[in-house]
């Protein structure tokens, strides 16, 4: 498979959602909840996310029933040395992948997963916001 390439048409201010298993929610700084760094790692180095403006939040929550939704921007993902690229699967055009920039070491991936985890916001459990 050819290496994934960053999609510049996904602007840095585009909001992304990632479903995070409840077991991956921990207490962060000052008692606030945040995702564990493991929530932003993948065996294939491809972390599935969805463009919020193109996604029905309730649909996403029903697809991942034992999860919380983490929110961050494409720019925040890129600040952590990742690329963001579209990956429409099974008719889901809002699906994107956050992948390490080419050549990133495994250790760097671990550190940047932690950095991205600390930059995200967990949506409230009862969030019913629909964007787009």
């Amino acid at each position: 498979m050819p290496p994934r390439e960053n999609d510049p048409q996904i602007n840095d201010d585009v909001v992304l959602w990632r479903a995070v298993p409840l077991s991956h929610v921990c207490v962060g700084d000052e008692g606030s909840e945040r995702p564990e760094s493991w929530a932003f790692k993948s065996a294939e180095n491809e972390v599935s996310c969805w463009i919020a403006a193109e996604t029905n939040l309730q649909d996403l929550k029903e697809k991942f029933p034992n999860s919380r939704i983490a929110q961050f921007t494409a720019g925040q993902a890129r600040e952590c040395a990742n690329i963001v690229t579209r990956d429409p699967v099974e008719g889901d055009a809002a699906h994107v992948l956050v992948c390490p920039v080419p050549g990133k070491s495994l250790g760097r991936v671990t550190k940047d997963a932690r950095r991205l985890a600390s930059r995200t916001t967990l949506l409230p459990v009862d969030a019913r916001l629909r964007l787009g």
Partner: protein
Amino acid sequence: MSSASVWDSPTPTLERPAQSQWSKVTPLVSAAPWVLDALYRIDGLANLPGNWDGYASPRIDAKAIAAAKRLVANVAFDSLPFPHIVPVLGGSVGLHWRYGDRELEFTFHPDGTVGFLKVLGADLDREENLEEGTLRRDQETAGLKLLLWMVGAR
């Protein structure tokens, strides 16, 4: 921060060491109260079905569970808080400790390796505040040294 600094740090004094001399296995009769609960919870990860995360992750590997339990049994001192026990993609087990402004994450992989991530302070953009590595041999002792760094003098 280099990995060598872990070993060069002054050894902190534990508030109430569970035993005066560390051995490969800490008898549970002298372990800190949190340990038994932690061991049960790690065991419970074996009950997770495949696709437990919705991203097609496999079931948690028995070897990863055993390795996580060995570390916990070997660091059973009262000064440690209860770890966050986490199923990790790929069948691995994660243990996350937080103590003041220091954190330690251990990832126990099915292949027997143990990854760690040290976090010092809230400013993660400072490169020296994050350190990662892999424990390949004598993992219980190496893990203990990392935890002593976490609870040590700052």
